[in-house]
């Protein structure tokens, strides 16, 4: 963990230099309303300030469960760009004929982890902790609405832990609330995105283990820009920034994998 922290802090200044290589668009400035999946909060909190300083475009971000945000957008919420935590909910917006492209744009691959506080009674943490008979509460994001919740159910079933864990699952509205349940000590374990588990607060307070990629379908995080947006150009500047090689190469430090 300490080594990881070191890598992140060493690499942060390089974001600055990386951005200098990207030419700013002519029509910089303005404000973009971003709807982003809860797993993106730690990522955008790091990247946002760099992006704003470089482009002069201000970001106004709302976080939530991907399905909830997609539903809000379909019902007329004024988002300019939507960062879903998967393909399905981004595709919902496309299917509603609200996106300015025929396909959602993949921008990262998400990783599912199991997280616990440092003062947990399960030490050392491993995925086998999920087989323990004395589990009390395990926080999970709503599997219908949050891709990380869906991935967690799939992983539990594939690994055979589901019958043991199911009676102890406490459901959160989004992966962000699942994280808060565990951070506040109310839940003993939580299925989180690696982005949250690697954010400074969670890294200092707890530890995590990754699930093998083979036990859940790829979390292919996709974004769409809204057709009706009055800031479409700025929204594309943001999307291009996130999908640029410079930022993609830094995604692993933020808990995501780069898109192929």
């Amino acid at each position, binding site marked *: 963990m300490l080594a990881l922290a070191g890598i992140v802090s060493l690499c942060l200044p390089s974001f600055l230099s990386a951005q200098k290589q990207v030419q700013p668009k002519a029509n910089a400035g303005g404000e973009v309303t971003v709807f982003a999946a809860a797993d993106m909060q730690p990522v955008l909190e790091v990247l946002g300030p760099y992006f704003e300083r470089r482009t002069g475009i201000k970001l106004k971000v709302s976080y939530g469960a991907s399905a909830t945000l997609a539903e809000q957008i379909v019902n007329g919420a004024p988002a300019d760009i939507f960062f879903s935590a998967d393909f399905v909910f981004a595709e919902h917006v496309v299917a509603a004929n609200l996106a300015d492209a025929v396909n959602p744009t993949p921008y990262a691959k998400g990783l599912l982890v199991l997280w616990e506080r440092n003062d947990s009674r399960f030490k050392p943490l491993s995925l086998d902790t999920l087989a323990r008979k004395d589990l009390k509460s395990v926080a999970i994001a709503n599997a*219908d609405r949050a891709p990380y919740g869906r991935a967690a159910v799939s992983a539990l079933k594939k690994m055979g832990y589901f019958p043991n864990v199911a009676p102890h699952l*406490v*459901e959160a*509205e989004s992966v962000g609330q699942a994280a808060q349940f565990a951070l506040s000590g109310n839940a003993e374990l939580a299925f989180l995105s690696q982005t949250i588990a690697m954010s400074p607060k969670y890294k200092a307070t707890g530890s995590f283990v990754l699930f093998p990629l083979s036990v859940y379908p790829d979390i292919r995080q996709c974004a769409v820009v809204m057709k009706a947006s009055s800031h479409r150009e700025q929204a594309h500047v943001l999307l291009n920034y996130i999908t640029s090689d410079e930022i993609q190469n830094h995604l692993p430090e933020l808990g995501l994998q780069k898109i192929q």
Partner: protein
Amino acid sequence: MTTPLDSSALMLTLRLATLTTVVLLLVALPLAYLIAFGKSRLRFFLEAVVALPLVLPPTVLGFYLLVALGPLTGPGRLLRDLLGHTLAFSFTGLLVGSVVYSLPFAVQPIVAGLRSVDRRYLEAGATLGASPLQVFLRVALPLAKSSVLAAAVLAFAHTVGEFGVVLMLGGNIPGRTRTLSIALFDLIENGQFHEANQLALLLLLFSTAALLLLYARPRTQAEVA
């Protein structure tokens, strides 16, 4: 998936509202007595504290129950050891949250009822040698009994309608913390509008019936006067 006739959510909600109402009446009677008949100047303070949940965002209450009474604090650990589980994600937690959140709905009608009792009856009781407690229980309360009914109806209905605290604290566990209002939220979020419509209609009819019962109830002598 939640179905409209989610009987476990219905039973849970009824159980929660009933227990909350019982606890609240036990708590509200002495509080209302102190506020209505207390001699201490502090009773204004008490009245303000009781009214707090009317203006406090449910998130404030949810936050305190989740964090201040969570397992990271001394009182929270004590509670956890006493209960065998955390307040969060438990029926007990919802009960505690509901009692606090519906407190003014139980206390305020009783205070109003007691205040409207003609003082002469109380003084007559006292002159005949009844202790203040006896005057309260055998003179004031019977005269204000309709306000106790009002308190019970309001506390029950308000608990059925509770949402924010349950959302923050509950963990949406079927049969344990998934109340009707949460089940409705789930249906809406999942786009099951037809089922949501049925459940919303049920809650609307229930709330209307509760308020009709409240306003159509026979008024006590004290209130008529």
